[in-house]
């Protein structure tokens, strides 16, 4: 899951980035409205965390701008001001949620997950795909009721596929979900993670669409493990 964090205070941004990193989010930080504008076009974000007090203006202005231009990323507004007017303003301008500083890291993660889940059109934290189940809160994966152990990156990748079951996801998009803009990624890293997922969940879990990217496999194609000698 990729999150764009718009926050001018470097200390706070570093904290949120590290905290979300622990929970498997890839986070990119923009420290001003100008940077945020450039980054939202350059990376596919699943959610945006927006601070209000930015050096070149109020974050709400940026939100209005995005909503006016048709951007639909779920936005969680962070604010250090708790007056009702401040909170309402954000929601009225198109924010999906808000948190008042200082917040609890778990709460931020839970709210982000809920936002992403809702924007994918699901009400429950459980994603089911045939015999495969992913609990987005506990991060547990089961296949035919048996738990499957996945690495952090594999889990993120699987979640990205399960969030948009019928879409073709490009390699770029998948890399954004995994690493964000800031990490240098080896060219075959994505292939390695996809290979691991196929090995653990069956070769049918992810289909390769030549020239375009990858897609989640059909539910009935699951569990067909490659018979390895």
């Amino acid at each position, binding site marked *: 899951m990729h999150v764009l964090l718009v926050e*001018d*205070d*470097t*200390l*706070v941004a*570093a*904290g*949120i980035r*590290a*905290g979300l990193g*622990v929970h498997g989010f890839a986070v990119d930080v923009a420290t*001003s409205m100008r940077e945020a504008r450039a980054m939202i076009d350059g990376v596919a974000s699943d959610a945006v965390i927006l601070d209000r*007090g930015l*050096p*070149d203006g109020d974050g709400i202005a940026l939100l209005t701008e995005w909503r006016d231009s048709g951007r639909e990323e779920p936005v969680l507004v962070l604010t*250090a*001001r*708790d*007056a009702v007017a401040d909170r309402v303003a954000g929601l009225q301008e198109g924010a999906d949620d808000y948190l*008042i*500083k*200082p*917040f*609890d*890291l*778990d709460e931020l993660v839970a709210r982000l997950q809920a936002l992403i889940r809702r924007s994918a059109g699901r009400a429950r934290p459980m994603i089911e795909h045939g015999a495969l189940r992913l609990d987005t809160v506990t991060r547990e994966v089961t296949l035919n009721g048996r738990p499957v152990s996945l690495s952090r990156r594999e889990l993120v990748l699987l979640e990205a596929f399960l969030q948009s079951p019928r879409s073709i996801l490009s390699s770029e998009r998948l890399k954004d979900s995994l690493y964000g803009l800031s990490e240098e990624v080896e060219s075959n890293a994505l292939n390695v993670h996809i290979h691991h997922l196929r090995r653990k969940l069956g070769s049918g879990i992810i289909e390769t669409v030549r020239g375009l990217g990858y897609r989640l496999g059909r539910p009935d194609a699951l569990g067909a493990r490659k018979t390895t000698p």
Partner: protein
Amino acid sequence: MSLRTRLLLTLGLTLTLLWGLAAAWLLSGLYDQLEKTLDQRLAQSARMVAGLMEQLPEDAWAQARRPALSIPAIEGLACQVHSPRGEVIARTHADMAAVLTPGERGHAYRQEAGVTWRVFTYERSGLVITTADRMDERNLLLRNVIEVAVVPFVVALSGSLLMLWWGVASGLAPLGRLRQALASRHPEALAPVSTRDVPVEIRPLVDTLNDLLRRVQQAMVREQRFTSDAAHELRTPLTAIKTHLQVASRVEGEAARHSLALAEQGVARMVRTLEQLLMLARVEGQLTFDDGQPSRVTDIMRLACDDIGEKAGRVAVIDRCPDAELDMPRELAVAALRNLLDNALCHGGEDGGVTLIAAAQGARQLCLRVCDRGLGLDPDALARLPQRFWRDGKGRGSGLGLAIVAAIAERFGGELSFEAGDGGGLEARLCLPRRPSPACDVP
């Protein structure tokens, strides 16, 4: 007691009392005058009868055994004439012997068969004439006169009282409306009171009230803004601390140590902001700072440079007034200068030098000029520099340092200003009051 009741009571009672006294005076005068007039009439009628009787021939009543003359009676009036021998010569009523029998000469009251008469006895040339007037006739006349005189009196008095009530009520109506308007306001409402229909007399009162409300509102907006800004400034480092601590508890090894180090950075920042907030509160409050130490400018500059630590090496000090002494506590002068130097060193470009010049300004002031060699600021930013929590876009510092300097300058009648420096950087100019001293070397 309300103004209205007091006015009504005072004016109403005074009016009633005065009109009552006037009426009593009038009535008693009327009664005396009427009695006198009627008595005179009674006497004149007796004299008239005497005059007529006198002109009768001497022998008219000399013949004995002549029956007494009878005069047709007039309602309420009686008359009887006695001869010098005491015989009744003529009379109007035969049955009023008790009243008309001559007694003492002059006026008297007499009663007969339950009726009171006013009697006048007159004697001329031996003839004794008695005339009598029925008192109830007189009283009836008096009552009629009183009725005619008193009714307009009562009508006028009640009319006056009504007009008084109406006048007071309508005169005080604007006050009542004002009271109503004030009473129906929300206790925390600070909107101005409407001055429409307010009489000239209480207009200054309402204007003063509105002025006060306006100032209270401004002060409240300022306070709310400050509280909100302060909360914002404290919450941000608190967020950093909390987040980094939570991360530290979820990771291990080097990553955990790194998070803890960042949390400590947050703590340091928070401590600095808190200290500056407290300093601002103390400077703006009533606390005294005087520690009895002389505020020599040379000492102040040295202490301020000591406070900023190793970066002091970048400060070039020019002291044009070494013996000058400021007329303010040394601690605050040092704090103000340190904040100016901090600001110049922080924003004046990487490793750029800073010049500090102390020079006298007239006989009463000493100016400390801090010039950096940074990029300077645009005029809009210059004006906002001393505002609380304003900082340049890079988010460095607490945004309170220069606000504290401005507060210190204001408290001691000094002045803080900023302008573009000669070398392109920013020049901060802090002028503070100084004690009278030998003339300095004025450049």
